[in-house]
C-alpha cells in the first residue's frame, strides 16, 4: 500500500514537472509535446486510480487528438512568425523561471496546512450502478444528447472558422 502511494505521488510529481516544462519551454512545438506528456502521465495516474475507461479517453483524445490540433495550429500560424516575436517571447520566458520556485513554495505550504476530510465510501450502491458503462448508457442520457449537440457545434465551428473568408 505504501509502495503504491509512493509510486502514485512520484507520478504526480513527474506530471507537475512536465506541466512546468510545458509552460517554461521557449519553442511552441515543445510546449505542445510537453502538454501531451503531461496528459500521458495523467493517463497512467488515472489508470492506477481505478478509472481505466476515462484513462483511455484521456490518452486518445487529450494526449492524441488535442496534440494534433495544437501542432497543426502551431504550424499553420508559424509561417510568418517573425524573429521579433521569438525575441520577445524569449524575454518574456525569462520571467517563467520564477514558476518552478512558486510551485515548490505553494506545494510546501499546502503540504503543511493539511485539512483532513473523512472519506465517505458510497458502498450502499449496487455493483450495476457503479459500472461506468451502465451509468453512461442508462442514467445519463441528457449528457449524451448534450455531447452530440456540442460535437455538432464544434463541426459548425470548424466549417466556419477554418475556411478562408470569401470576401475581405
Amino acid at each position, binding site marked *: 500500500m505504501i509502495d503504491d502511494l509512493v509510486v502514485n505521488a512520484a507520478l504526480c510529481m513527474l506530471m507537475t514537472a512536465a506541466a512546468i516544462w510545458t509552460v517554461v519551454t521557449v519553442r511552441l512545438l515543445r510546449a505542445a509535446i510537453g502538454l501531451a506528456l503531461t496528459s500521458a502521465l495523467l493517463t497512467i495516474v488515472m489508470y492506477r486510480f481505478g478509472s481505466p475507461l476515462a484513462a483511455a479517453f484521456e490518452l486518445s483524445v487529450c494526449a492524441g487528438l488535442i496534440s494534433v490540433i495544437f501542432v497543426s495550429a502551431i504550424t499553420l500560424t508559424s509561417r510568418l512568425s517573425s524573429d521579433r516575436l521569438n525575441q520577445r517571447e524569449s524575454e518574456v520566458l525569462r520571467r517563467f523561471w520564477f514558476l518552478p520556485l512558486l510551485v515548490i513554495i505553494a506545494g510546501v505550504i499546502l503540504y503543511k496546512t493539511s*485539512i483532513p*476530510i473523512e472519506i465517505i465510501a458510497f458502498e450502499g450502491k449496487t455493483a450495476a450502478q457503479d459500472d461506468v458503462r451502465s451509468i453512461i448508457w442508462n442514467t445519463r442520457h*441528457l*449528457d449524451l444528447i*448534450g455531447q452530440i449537440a456540442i460535437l*455538432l457545434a464544434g463541426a459548425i465551428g470548424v466549417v466556419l472558422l477554418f475556411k478562408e473568408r470569401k470576401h475581405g
Partner: protein
Amino acid sequence: MPTLLIILPLALLLILNLPLLRAARRVSFWLCAVLALAQVVATATHMGGLIPDLGAAFDPYIVLQLRMTGLSEVVLLAIGIVVLASLFTARAMIADHDERFKFGNLVILAMMGLNGTALLADLISLYVFIEITAVSSFILIAFDRDSDGLEGSFKYIILSAVATAALLASIALFMMVSPDTSFAAVRAALAVSQHSFYVNLAAGLLLCGLFVKGGLVPFHWWLPDAYSSAPAPASVLLAGIITKVSGIYALIVVSTSILTVGGAAGEVIMVLGIVSAIAGALLALGQRDMKRMLAYSSVSQVGYIMLGLGSGTALGVAGAVFHFFNHAIFKSLLFVNAAAVEGSLGTRDMDRMGGIASKMPVTGVTSIIGFFSAAGIPPLAGFWSKVMIIIALWQAGHQTASVVAVLVGVLTLAYFLSMQRRVFFGRLREGLGEIREARMSILVPAVSLALITVAAGLFFKPVFSKIIMPVGEMLVK
C-alpha cells in the same frame, strides 16, 4: 413537453444538415424561426395548462430527468422570444443565404443549450448545457471573422474556461459528500455533511464560476467586449438571454435548490449585486459606443436581479425572476434597435448621431419604450419588477440596499436619457439626411418586444398573482 424542447432542436439541426437538403437552405432558415415560435406558443399555452404533454411518448426510451417548474416556464418563454428576435435581426443583417443558414444553426444550438439549462436538475448536465451555449456563442461572436469579433470571442473563451474550471472543481468537491450530482441529492448531502471547509470551497467556486458567466462586477470586463464586437443579431441573443441564462438563471437555481438563500451565499450575492448595479450604471454613463453602453447597462440590471435574489424572501426572488424576464425583453429590444441604427448609419458611435428619430420613427418610439422599462418608469414592466425588488429589500431589513437600488434607478434614467438625446432627439445631424427606417424584419421584432413590455406592465396584476409570485414562493420554501 420538456423532452421535446431538447430533442426537437437537435433533430431539426441534424435533418437540416443532411447533404440532400442543400437546395432547401432558404427555407431552412425559416424552419428555425418556426421552431422558436413553436417554443413561445407552446410555453405560453403550457403556462395556461392548455396543451397535453406530447413529449411523453419518448419517456420509455430516454431518461432525461428534466423538471418543468414555474421558473423554467418563464425562462423558456424568454428564450423563445429572444431567439425569434435574434433570427429576425439576422434576416435583415446577413445577406448571404449560406451564412444566414449557418447563423440559424448556431442560434438553434444555443437555444437547445439554453432550454436544457432551464430544464435540468443535475450539476453535470448543467455544466454540459452551459458549455453547449458557450461554444455556440464563441462561434457566433467570431461569426464575421473581423478583428474585433475574434478578439471578443477569444476573451470570452478564456474567461469562460476559467469559469468552467471553477464550476467543474466545485462539482467534483460536491461529489466528495454526495453520491449523485442531482440537485436534490447534493442538497440532501449538504444538509448532513460535516466538512465545512470543502463544502464552503465548493460553494464558493460554484458561485464564482457563475458570477463570471453572468458578468457581475469584479468579473465583468469580458462582457462589453463580447457584446459590442459580436455581429448585431448575435449580440441580441448574447445580451438578451445567453449570459443571463448560463450565469444568472443558473445562479438563481443553484442558490435556491442547492445552497440556501439568506445565508452567507445570500450576503455575497447581495454585495456583488450592489457593486454591479452601481459600477455598471457609472461605467455606462461614460460610453460613446451604443452597444458598449447597453452592455454596461446589462451589468447594472443584473445587479438588480442579484439584489432581489440576495434578499432571500419570496417577494424578492419573485421580483428577481420578473426582472430577469423583463430584462431579456427590453435589453433585446434595445439591441435590436442598436442593430437598426447601426444598419442604417453604419456606425455605433453616438457622437456621430443625432436627431434620427425623425427619419426612423418606429425605432425611436420602441427605443423609448425599452429604455423607460429599463429605467423603471411606470406603468412599464421594468417598473413593477424594480418596485418588487426594492420593497422586498426594505422588508427584509436591507434598507441601505433598497436606497441604493432607487438611486441606481435615477442613474439608469440619466444614462438612457443621454443616449436618447445623443441618438434620437434634437436636430438631425448634418450628413444624415439620406438615412431610412430599418427593414421590416427588424421592425417586426422591435415592435413585438415593445408590445410585450407594455403588456406585461399593463397586465401586471394577473401576471403577478398567477405566474410570478407562485414562482417566488416555490423557490423560497
